[in-house]
């Protein structure tokens, strides 16, 4: 397992989170930025809203370090790409630095456009990722979520997996997760986070 060297390239660590509207990508990025801020870093994130109900592609770009100016991750600059849907991994692959870390949820959500164009849903996602980096992990996170009893805790599982590659305290993560999810779901989300940590280690 590789850990991110926070002192590399101007002290900025960049994480790109992506997926499909409704999967909880933005909530996950809200948790990540709170963890980074509570750990003492300057943080910025950018996102485009509105896709939750409408199934569009969602991306959130998070940057943290000593001092952050731009809220956008440049091409080839992301340290980690965290994808909640497998095709979306490829859509944002060019943002990843060479040999960066790729973690994706092995779930397919077919966009409508597949039925009206000649462009097919890609088959060889793992292979394409490996061309970019050797640090690729495909997780069966959606099934873990379903086994825990609620597919909506997918985002906590993904954050758990992500947490293995960042140097924030586990307690800081759990604390923020607890404060950011609906009260009735605190326990299941904390479990989900821990399961995610076990999945990718």
């Amino acid at each position, binding site marked *: 397992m590789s850990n991110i060297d926070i002192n590399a390239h101007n002290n900025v660590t960049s994480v790109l989170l992506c997926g499909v509207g409704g999967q909880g990508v933005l909530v996950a990025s809200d948790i990540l930025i709170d963890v980074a801020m509570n750990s003492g870093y*300057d943080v*910025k*994130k950018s996102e485009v809203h*509105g896709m939750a109900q*409408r199934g569009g592609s969602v991306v959130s770009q998070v940057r943290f370090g000593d001092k952050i100016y731009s809220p956008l991750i440049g091409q080839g600059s992301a340290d980690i790409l965290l994808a909640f849907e497998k095709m979306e991994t490829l859509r944002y692959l060019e943002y990843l630095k060479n040999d960066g870390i790729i973690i994706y949820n092995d779930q397919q959500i077919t966009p409508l*456009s597949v039925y*009206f164009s000649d*462009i097919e849903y890609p088959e060889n996602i793992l292979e394409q990722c490996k061309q970019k980096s050797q640090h690729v992990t495909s997780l069966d996170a959606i099934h873990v979520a379903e086994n825990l009893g609620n597919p909506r805790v997918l985002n906590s599982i993904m954050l758990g997996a992500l947490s293995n590659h960042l140097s924030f305290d586990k307690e800081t993560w759990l604390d923020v997760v607890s404060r950011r999810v609906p009260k009735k779901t605190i326990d299941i989300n904390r479990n989900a986070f821990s399961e995610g940590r076990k999945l990718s280690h």
Partner: protein
Amino acid sequence: MSKAMLSGNEAIARGFYEAGGTFAAAYPGTPSTEILENIGTYAEIKAQWAPNEKVALEVSAGAALGGVRSLAAMKHVGLNVAADPFFSLSYQGVNAGIVIISADDPAMHSSQNEQDNRWFAKAAKVAMLEPSDSQEAKDFVVLGLKLSEEFDTPVLLRTTTRINHSKSIVNFGERVEIDRKKYVKNFSKNVLLPMNARKKHVLVEERLQKLMDYGYDCPFNRVEWGDRTIGIITSGISYQYAREAFPNASFLKLGLTNPLPFKLIEDFSSRVDRVFIIEELDPFLEEQIAAKGIKVSGKDKIPIMGELNTDIVTASFSDNGSKATNEMKKKPLPPRAPVLCPGCSHRGIFYVMKKLRLTVTGDIGCYTLAAIPPLETMDTCLCMGASIGYAHGIEKATDDELKGKLVGVIGDSTFLHSGITGLIDLVYNQGKTKICILDNHITAMTGHQEHPGTGLTLRREPTNSVDLEEICRAAGVKRVVRVDPYKIDETLAVFKEELAVEEPSVIIADAPCIIRARKRFSEPYYVDAETCIKCGMCHRVGCPAIEKDENGKTKINPLFCIGCDICRQVCKPGAIRKPEK
């Protein structure tokens, strides 16, 4: 809580709260919508949705005149709607301060254009502030209200999507309670008759000069000295990109960008070897600065279209001299654009219009998504409320060529925003065109906000609900028909009947937004694979619940399907079935 990660919109709301703001109004519009939504969470502030941005600004201006600090928020094209009060308010000035937010959208993440609203401030001769992150978004509201009162000017706070929707650390302050200023009748200030307005213009020009002098040394503008070979003049989010692209350069970071502090700009420029102007969209800074005789490099290198980022700025000034573009490389991946939700009430109506091969003038809302494949049933979309005028105009131009084949489509919120006058015009000028109002009882696309037809205020207090049918009849439309958009055959029959009649009619598709209603019509539908002949008709309604299995037969995803019945109605072989119970 002393600090938090806030979006620019949340920060603006917080700043208004801390500044003792007391009244705010807006109409939803990405990327500004969350400003009023967040302001509404502060009990001390009166916050309300207006039917459109013109009204929002008029009411806020009235509140400022009445003596309380006020705010109006809108997206860039919203300021087009509010332009009339905006320009004249510059002449009137204020009593308590007013800040007007224009949330621009470079790269058109969700807009019809990427107009650069900085020109509005210059044309209207008002003070303008441009924050570069969330902390400034908050601080500039606080300082901006003071500026508004001190200089007797409306203040335009101009943001862009990457400010409104990016989150960064914001330090909190306490709210100051401001005493309400007295309202005093002032004929020569507040009544813009020519005799008064002529004198006000003189004051407007003097005010500009005072603001220009103020800008030389004010909290909004600052110089950051670095290497003197390159001096960069920049504002807004562009500052952040420029700072990363040129970490060692000297910077003149402008926060007060109308009027420009020319003396400061000249001083700065004389102390560096070369001046770069790094700004998104139009050469707003560049043209004015170059006109002063300062030699600058700007749009000769930086793109005039789309949004910037650090890579583009770096590439623009790279030695190979190539002008960078922000064209993303073409990806061979299936696009994943937003689509109408499973169960959306718009789907059936557009299917009917598609079947009838109608020319459809469209408007702005979730239903604009019906323009893309597979429905592809919208010919035009210009601006809020234009569908009705467009339909009427096309009818007048084409005489009988499109008789019985033309319909204008508009949502309920859009209709109340600026469709009523179009309908009045259609009847008054003897048009015959059919209009279809898609009444889903909410302003949906921007995130489900209340409007004057929903019966609830911003804070969900019950209130009067405008009767759309009555408005149509009062405008003189005699044929107003309601349809259930989930019943295709009935809706088709109504359309045919109305299209055959040579007088105006309004068809109201009446069904609440499926997300808002949190409704499930039935358990998920299913497909009998043996009966499915793979004709593809069901896919043509564009529902994300309708998929294909490995054999190409239709399969319905039970996670998405809510049983709206549209696909079953279009399935001729009867392969799509409603579950028994």
